[in-house]
C-alpha cells in the first residue's frame, strides 16, 4: 500500500513538473553596441554609416552592428527619425519586432564586405565595425504605416500647405534669380536641394517660373482694366511660405600640380512672414580632385537632410503648440490715450482667448506687434483666424472695428478704426 502511494506521488510530481509552463527567456533584439557614426548623406533616401556591433561570435557581432546602424537613424545623431517624446513612446511598443533580423535587413541597401576593425574584448566577445548604407526613407515609410510617424504631406496639410522656394543668399540689391542664371554652381546647389524636397513630396516653387507667372497675372489684370492692388503686389514680393537660402564657397588648393577643391555650404530655412528660423546647417565636402558639381552635391547633401529634418520637427511642434501667426495692428488716428489703452488691453485679452499662446513683441503708441500660436483645428489659415478675431472685436469693442490691410500667409497687417 505504502509503495503504491509512493509511486503515485512520484508520478504526480513528474506530471506536474512536465505541465509547468517553461519560462523561455527571449534574447532582446535591441542593439548592444549603439556605436555608430554618419559618414555621408548618400542621397535623399539613404545614409552611409559606420557602426560597431558586439556579439559572442562573428555572426552575432555583425547582426548587432546592423542594429546599431538602424538605431542610429532612428534615435542617434542630431537629426533622427523619432523626434518627439510621443513618437519614441509609440516606438517602444514595437521596438522588439522592428529590430528583428529579417526586418532590419530590409533597410540595409549595402553592407561593406570587409571589417573596418575587429577586436576581441576582455569579456571574450567580439567587436566588429562595418560600413552600411541605410535606407532612411524606407524606415520612415514603415514607421508611418505603423502609425509611429506622421506623413509629411499630412503634416503640411494640417499646417496650411506651406510652399517652399530655394534661393541663393544675396547681398544688397542682387536678384537671386539673376544669380541663379549667371552662376552654374549656384544653380547646381539649388537643384540638389530641390531634389531632396521633391523626393520627400514637399511643395516647391520654382523661382523663375513664379516671377513669370506673377508678371503674367499683373499684365492680364492691367489689360482687363482691373485696378492695381498695391498690397497684393507687395505681398507677391514675399514669394513663398518658406525660403531655403544657401551660401556656397569653393576652396581650391594644389597638391603638386593637381588642383583639389572643397565645397562649403550653409543652408538655412525660415518662414518668410514670421521670420522664424526653422533650421540652419553647414555642410562640407571632402577635398577632392573632381568637378565642382560633385563636391557641391556632396556638401549640400551633408547639410540639407538635417535642415529638412528640423523643418519637420518644427511642424510637429506647431501641431502641438499651434500655428504661429504674426499680427501687426495699427491704431488709427483720433484715439485718445484712454481709448488707446482700452483697445490695447482688450486686444490682448481677445488674442489670449483665441490662441494657445501669445507673445507681445511691441505695444507701441500706434503699433501693436504680436505673435500668436493658434490651434490648427480651430483656424487653419490666417484669414480664418482674422474672421474669428473680427467677430470677437465686434462683440467686445462695439465702437471699434478691425480692418485687414493685408493678409499674407502667416502675416496679418490690421488696422483698428473707430466706427
Amino acid at each position: 500500500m505504502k509503495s503504491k502511494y509512493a509511486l503515485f506521488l512520484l508520478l504526480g510530481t513528474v506530471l506536474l513538473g512536465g505541465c509547468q509552463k517553461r519560462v523561455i527567456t527571449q534574447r532582446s533584439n535591441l542593439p548592444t553596441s549603439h556605436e555608430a557614426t554618419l559618414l555621408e548623406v548618400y542621397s535623399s533616401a539613404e545614409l552611409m554609416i559606420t557602426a560597431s556591433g558586439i556579439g559572442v561570435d562573428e555572426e552575432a557581432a555583425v547582426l548587432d552592428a546592423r542594429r546599431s546602424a538602424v538605431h542610429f537613424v532612428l534615435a542617434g545623431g542630431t537629426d533622427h527619425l523619432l523626434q518627439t517624446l510621443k513618437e519614441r513612446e509609440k516606438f517602444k511598443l514595437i521596438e522588439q519586432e522592428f529590430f528583428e533580423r529579417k526586418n532590419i535587413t530590409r533597410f540595409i541597401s549595402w553592407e561593406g564586405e570587409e571589417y573596418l576593425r575587429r577586436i576581441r574584448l576582455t569579456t571574450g566577445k567580439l567587436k566588429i565595425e562595418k560600413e552600411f548604407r541605410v535606407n532612411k526613407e524606407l524606415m520612415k515609410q514603415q514607421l508611418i504605416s505603423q502609425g509611429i510617424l506622421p506623413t509629411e504631406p499630412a503634416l503640411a496639410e494640417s499646417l496650411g500647405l506651406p510652399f517652399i522656394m530655394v534661393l541663393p543668399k544675396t547681398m544688397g540689391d542682387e536678384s537671386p534669380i539673376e544669380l541663379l542664371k549667371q552662376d552654374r554652381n549656384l544653380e547646381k546647389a539649388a537643384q540638389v536641394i530641390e531634389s531632396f524636397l521633391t523626393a520627400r513630396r514637399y511643395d516647391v516653387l520654382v523661382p523663375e517660373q513664379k516671377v513669370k507667372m506673377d508678371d503674367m497675372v499683373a499684365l492680364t489684370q492691367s489689360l482687363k482694366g482691373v485696378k492695381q492692388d498695391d498690397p497684393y503686389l507687395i505681398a507677391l514680393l514675399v514669394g513663398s511660405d518658406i525660403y531655403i537660402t544657401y551660401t556656397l564657397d569653393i576652396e581650391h588648393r594644389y597638391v603638386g600640380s593637381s588642383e583639389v577643391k572643397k565645397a562649403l555650404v550653409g543652408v538655412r530655412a525660415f518662414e518668410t512672414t514670421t521670420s522664424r528660423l526653422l533650421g540652419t546647417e553647414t555642410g562640407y565636402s571632402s577635398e577632392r580632385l573632381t568637378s565642382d558639381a560633385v563636391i557641391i552635391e556632396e556638401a549640400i547633401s551633408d547639410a540639407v537632410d538635417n535642415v529638412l529634418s528640423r523643418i519637420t520637427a518644427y511642424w510637429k511642434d506647431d501641431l502641438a503648440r499651434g500655428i504661429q501667426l504674426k499680427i501687426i495692428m495699427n491704431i488709427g488716428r483720433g484715439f485718445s490715450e484712454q481709448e488707446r489703452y482700452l483697445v490695447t488691453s482688450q486686444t490682448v485679452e481677445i488674442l489670449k482667448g483665441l490662441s494657445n499662446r501669445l507673445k507681445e513683441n511691441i505695444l507701441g503708441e500706434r503699433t501693436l506687434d504680436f505673435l500668436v500660436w493658434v490651434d490648427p483645428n480651430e483656424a487653419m489659415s490666417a484669414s480664418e483666424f482674422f474672421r474669428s478675431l473680427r467677430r470677437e472685436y465686434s462683440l467686445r469693442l462695439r465702437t471699434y472695428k478691425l480692418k485687414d490691410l493685408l493678409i499674407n500667409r502667416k502675416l496679418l497687417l490690421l488696422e483698428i478704426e473707430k466706427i
Partner: protein
Amino acid sequence: MVGPGVKRKVAIFFVSLSLSIMALHNQSFPQVQGKYERKSISYINTLFFTHSGIRLSRQQQAYLLDAIKKRIEMERFDCNPLPDKVIREFPKECKTRTGASLTELDEILNRTVAKEIVHILDINKEMRAKEFLTEADRNSFVGTKAKDLGITAEDLEKIMNSAYIFVPFLDSCVTAKKRGADPIKLYGGIAWYRLSTQREESSITFIDTVKAQGSLVMASIFRLYSPSDKTAQFRQLADCLAKNLQFATRRISEFSLAVTLRRVDGGTVWFGLGEKEGVNKDDKYYVMELVEDTSGNIHEKRLGFVRVIKVGDNQANPKAMTKAKVVHGSQFEKGMFVSEHALTPLEICLKVNVIPVALKQGWLDYNSIKYFEVPTDRTADAYVGGLSIHYNLVKALNLSQTYVTFEIQMGAMRLKANLWDQQYQTDIGGIIGMHGGVMKKFYCGPLAIVNGVKFGGHSLLVTEKVEEINHKFESRVVTGFTFDLGVELALSINVNLGGLATYRLFDPTSSWTLKIKDKEKAWYSDKPPEVDFSGLGYNIYLSFSLPRFF
C-alpha cells in the same frame, strides 16, 4: 659504444648549433601597422663606404649595386627611377665617399634628388592614389551616383609623402689571409631616407639602416661557382648580400605586407594580397587579432600561421585573393589579419640517424699478420649525426614544398675488431656520409607527410693507435639510394620536428684502405671484411627555416 666524452661533445655541438640558429629568429617580429599601403622608392646608384680601406674594383661595385637594386625593387614598391644626370650629381656632392656619416647624406639628397623625386611623384600620383580607394569609397555617393573615382587630397598627399630613397653602403670586406686575395665576406647595408612634402619645401630625412652580410658558405656547398673563377665567386658573394638585404627590408614594419582576412573556410583562408605585392607560394604569414586588455588598451595577439598555396593575380583582377592553408592555429575568422614573416627558402636540419650496418667476418693481412680482423658476422646500429640543408624549389618549379637536399653525416657504431693478430682490440667504428636528393612534403594542418629520395655515399672508418702509431682502416665509399618516408610536425613558423623511416639500398663492399702513419699500405686477404649499409633505419630531426642566406 661511443664514449661518454664524445657523446657530451656531440651533444654540446648540436645544442649550440640549435641555439645559434634559433638566435637568428630571435628578432622581434614587426608590429603590424594595419593594411600594407604601397610605397614608392628611389635608388641612388652609388656605393657608400662607411670605412676607408675597403677595396673593390669598379666592376665589383657595379655588380653589387645592380644586385642590390634588383633585390630591393620588389613588386610591393612603386619605383621612381631617377635620371642618370641627377644620380651623377650625388657622388659629386659627396666630396668624400668614405668615412662620412650616413645621417649626413640627407642634406645632400635634398639638394640633388628631392626635386626630381617630387616631380616623378607628381606625374604618377593620381594613378597611384587609386590604390587607396576603399570599398566604402567605391560605394559612396561620389563612387556610384557621381561615377567619379573620388580621389581625395588626403590620398594624393599620402602618395607624395610615402616616397623613400635607399642608398647602399659597405661596412667591411673580409678577404682570405693572403695578399691580394679576393673578398670572401661582405658586411653592408642600406640606408633609408624618407621624402616629405608637407611643408612648402620638400625635405628628405634619414630614417634607419638595415644591415646584412654576404658569405660563400651556401655557394660553396652547392658548388655554385668554380674556385678558379674569381668573378663568379664575387658575384655569388654579392648576390648573397643583396638577398639578405631584401629579407631585412621585408622585415621593416612599414614595408612588411599585412592585410585582413577576407574569407575563412575551415582550414583555408583568403586575403587580398597577391602578385602585385610579390606574394609567392609557400610564403608564411602570422595570423593575428586585435585584443583589448583590462586597461582598455588594444594590442595584437598572435594566433597561428598560414602558408600560401595559391597566389591571387590581383594585377589582372583587383579583387583576386591569395589562398593559404592553416598550418598552426584554429578558429580563424574573417577580420583577423595576416602579417608577413619573411623567410628564405632554406631550411637547416639537425638529425640523429640510426643506420643499420652489417659487418661480415673477414680480415686484412699485412706484413704476414692479420692486421685487421672482424672475427664474427655482426649487424649493429650506427648512431650518426647529420646536418642537412634543404632548399625549397617552389619559385623554380612552381611546386609547393618541394626541396633539394644536401646532407653530411658523421657518427659511430659499436663493433668488435682485432688488430695485430688479436693483440689489440677496438670496439668503435666511425661512419661518415654525404647525400643529396629531393624531398616533398604534403601538409595537413601542422602535420606533413614527408617523402624523399637521396643519392650518396657512406664509408666505415676504424682508427686506432697501436704502439703510438696511427692505424686507419677505411672501407671504400659506397654509393646508393636512400628512401625516406615519415612525418613532420610544425612546432612554430620556423621550427619543425620530424621523424623518418629510411630504407637504404647500397652495394656491400669488401674494399678497404689501410694507412699506417697516414701512408697507404697494400694489404692482401682471401676474405676481407664486408660492409653493407643497406637496410631499414630511421631518424629524428629538428629543422629550422632560415631568415637569411649564408
